[in-house]
């Protein structure tokens, strides 16, 4: 069995940043990723990386970024994570320049920053609307640079950092047989190309697998987003928190059907685009919630002035946090004011000159022209909500990214939970994965280096993992594609953007049936590059994660951020004090309440008392004062 110090599962932004850090700490690192190196879902990120560098508005600093992040997350964020994130994001962006990244520039040659929903100042470092690609390519090229350095030393590019591309991990191995107790000892999985199994021994495993969107029918996420890391963590004995919070991005494409769900970047609104219903009304003015009323313009005239004079005008309501905008679009369509294909209009054509649109939003221009025959410099886009991001994830220590439940297990990026609370602000995911990817790599490397003896994978776990992986070639008759489609329909219809108790109970029943049927899944052909088999194995993960989402969503009797209940429409200050935590117990998902860590006094002092009173109970605020 190959031996490494650190195995990173996933080669998106968080995984690569973790791998780079671990290697720079001297660890020998394996990166295992489902796709080709450089193809990770991070390339889909368009808008930018949020970091309070203050290049465009010098009023910005980490405290303002922290405040915006907490507001966006409806104060359910782990405050220490939000603090570290806001403090370290600028360094993480600047460091990318030293690795060759080329961001768009300000007039004085610094990194340009753009406006985005929920961010008080222009804060997003960007490259047109392809920032994620720039990030991935920069990290990929940094990995290559480290490999070139190793090659100079050892004659082998892969001596210290090896990418196992098109490899899928199906199990985290531990030193004992039992799911709980025992340290991480490695990973097990298969190579897509050959279908052969592999196992790597390593004392530290960093999960950086991204999200779970493929459990939903309408999603901006790629096929890889099957909740692998979430499920691997559960199966290894770790806990997931905040799984009820799913971000539906307000603007996905709605037509043609084959591209339904593909993301339309928030930059369209940040750069001046407006939302209109079928009556031509800028309806976002009708949907500003009380907690945000003081910060957003009340009239179109004021909103339009803000783009040129942000210090004396309030922001347009199109730039409310994503959950608010998604709900507003949903409400307009439901009220019969939607477009032909069930969306609303997003118009930038009447707001900016054509050449400016092409310069600022090149990939949106390209995407609509090539996939929908729509020229966004001449006509509005049709858009509607799409499942985009899961706020929930593996419970981690904020400083080290380590799972408190499983020694040797780390998680960073979308697969980790807590940072974004009930709703993530746009731009905060790329900064999140840089900040916590680095921390995960750092602490995983340190943990591995400090061990005096290494845990060895238990033999019976390897046997069980192998048996589990070949099971779909048995007698089963259930079709993996059919099961997947039913799962997506169930989650979309019953645990989607607006939730009701009855429907969520129904979802749980259907998920239970699907889980039983998935045990009977059968595939054709052999193990070499067989997508049917891959999907059959991914189903386990999607079903586990979906069960977490459905169960936690039913328990949380309030509406907050990415969790909206028709039967409990208000935010409840008592519920803010609790995270819902999922664990795997005897093969089933158990959910329990766990207190949220308190907001430190110095961080609380960053907010106005009247604002805090909207989120905190009087007792919490009284405790604070005493």
């Amino acid at each position, binding site marked *: 069995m190959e031996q490494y110090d650190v195995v990173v599962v996933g080669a998106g932004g968080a995984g690569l940043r973790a791998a780079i850090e671990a290697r720079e700490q001297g660890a020998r690192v394996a990166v295992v990723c489902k*796709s*080709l*190196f*450089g*193809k*990770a879902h991070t*390339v*889909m990120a368009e808008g930018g990386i949020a970091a309070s*560098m203050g290049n465009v508005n010098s009023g910005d600093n980490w405290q303002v970024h922290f405040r915006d992040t907490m507001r966006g997350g409806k104060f359910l964020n782990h405050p220490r994570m939000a603090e570290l994130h806001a403090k370290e994001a*600028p*360094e993480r962006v600047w460091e990318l320049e*030293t*690795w*060759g990244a*080329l*961001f*768009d*520039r300000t007039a*004085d*040659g*610094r990194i*340009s920053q753009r406006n985005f929903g929920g961010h008080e100042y222009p804060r997003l470092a960007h*490259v*047109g609307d*392809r920032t994620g*690609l*720039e990030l991935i*390519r920069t990290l990929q*090229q*940094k990995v*290559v640079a480290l*490999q*070139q350095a190793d090659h100079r030393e050892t004659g082998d*590019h892969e001596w210290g950092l090896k990418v196992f591309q098109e490899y899928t991990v199906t199990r985290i191995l531990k030193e004992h047989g039992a799911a709980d107790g025992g340290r991480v000892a490695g990973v097990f999985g298969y190579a897509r*190309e050959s279908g052969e199994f592999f196992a790597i021994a390593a004392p530290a495993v960093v999960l950086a697998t991204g999200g779970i969107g493929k459990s939903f029918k309408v999603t901006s996420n*790629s*096929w890889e987003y099957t909740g692998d890391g979430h499920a691997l963590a559960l199966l290894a004995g770790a806990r997931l928190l905040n799984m009820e919070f799913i971000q539906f991005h307000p603007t996905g494409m709605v*037509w043609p*059907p*084959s*591209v339904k769900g*593909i*993301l339309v970047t928030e930059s369209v609104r940040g750069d001046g685009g407006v939302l209109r219903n079928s009556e031509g009304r800028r309806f976002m003015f009708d949907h500003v919630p009380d907690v945000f009323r003081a910060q957003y313009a009340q009239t179109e005239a004021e909103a339009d002035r803000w783009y040129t004079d942000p210090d004396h005008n309030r922001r347009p309501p199109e730039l409310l946090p994503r959950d608010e905008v998604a709900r507003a679009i949903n409400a307009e369509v439901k009220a019969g004011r939607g477009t032909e294909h069930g969306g609303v209009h997003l118009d930038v054509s009447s707001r900016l000159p054509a050449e400016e649109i092409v310069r600022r939003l090149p990939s949106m221009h*390209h*995407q609509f022209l*090539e*996939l*929908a025959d729509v020229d966004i410099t001449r006509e509005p886009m049709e858009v509607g909500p799409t499942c985009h991001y899961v706020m929930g994830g593996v419970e981690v220590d904020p400083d080290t990214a380590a799972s408190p439940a499983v020694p040797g297990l780390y998680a960073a990026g979308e697969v980790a939970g807590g940072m974004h609370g009930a709703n993530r602000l746009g731009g905060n995911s790329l900064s999140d994965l840089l900040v916590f990817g680095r921390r995960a790599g750092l602490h995983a490397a340190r943990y591995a280096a400090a061990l005096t003896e290494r845990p060895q994978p238990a033999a019976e776990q390897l046997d069980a993992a192998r048996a589990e992986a070949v099971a779909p070639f048995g007698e089963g008759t259930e*079709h*993996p*594609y059919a099961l997947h489609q039913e799962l997506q329909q169930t989650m979309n219809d019953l645990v989607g953007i607006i939730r009701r108790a009855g429907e969520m109970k129904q979802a749980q029943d259907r998920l239970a049936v699907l889980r039983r049927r998935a045990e009977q899944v059968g*595939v*054709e*052909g*052999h193990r*070499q*590059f*067989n*997508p*049917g088999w891959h999907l059959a194995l991914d189903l386990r993960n999607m079903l586990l994660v979906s069960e977490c989402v459905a169960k936690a969503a039913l328990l949380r009797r309030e509406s907050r951020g990415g969790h909206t209940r028709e039967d409990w429409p208000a935010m409840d200050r008592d519920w803010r004090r609790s995270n819902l935590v999922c664990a795997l117990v005897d093969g089933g998902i158990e959910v329990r309440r766990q207190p949220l860590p308190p907001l430190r006094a110095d961080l609380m002092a960053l907010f106005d008392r009247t604002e805090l009173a909207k989120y905190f109970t009087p007792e919490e605020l009284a405790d604070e004062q005493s």
Partner: protein
Amino acid sequence: MSSLEFRIWRGEAGEGGFVSYRVEVNDGEVVLDLVHRLQATQAPDLAVRWNCKAGKCGSCSAEVNGRPRLLCMTRMSTLPPDRPVVLTPLRAFPSIRDLVTDVGFNYAKAREVPSFVPPPGLAPGEYRMAQQDVARSQEFRKCIECFLCQDTCHAVRDHEENKGAFAGPRFLMRLAELDMHPLDAAPDRKRDAQEVHGLGYCNITKCCTEVCPEHIRITDNALIPLKERVADRKYDPLVWLGSKIGRRPKD
């Protein structure tokens, strides 16, 4: 809704043949939608690479009616309605299975290009560059590494023996990108382009530019300027003299 014949090359390690399928086509679909429908209905083990399905990751490269394309960005409405759609794997790379090829050549070439060298004396956060100066390299950084240019370039496509000495358009463009980076401190990119990465094999037929799904003007904006810079450096007697007597920087 209508139906159409798809003729797909199926096989392993270069051994195989065409299999015909009849499949429903709906309004607005792209070729990858049809491949997915085939997987879900008639051919669950049909191997294809794909990820984002939005033209951003460059995974689903294959050949549609003999032309290198992204399957996710090829709309059915752009193909002849009365003829079968022929899908084959990228021809310049070894076949693995069905539409999937071994693109390892490209990753090997990527490692041969020396990385960005940060300018000495500038700390993180101190970089200052003008937008017009970064714009040239930014165009090349739009590359999604679909490797269609590598597949179509005849220096590779028809000449397997060139693969050792020739980096291909994608990685020559990477060299141009670094050479035009306002702050890259590496000394010998131009010489390397010619002597190590085979720039001379390119005879600017622009096939790479034609297939680029990002519409990067690879030949005009990267390869020709790189050739000109190499020529300047090699043949300009003043540059030559300057580099010999150490009065002028080697660039």
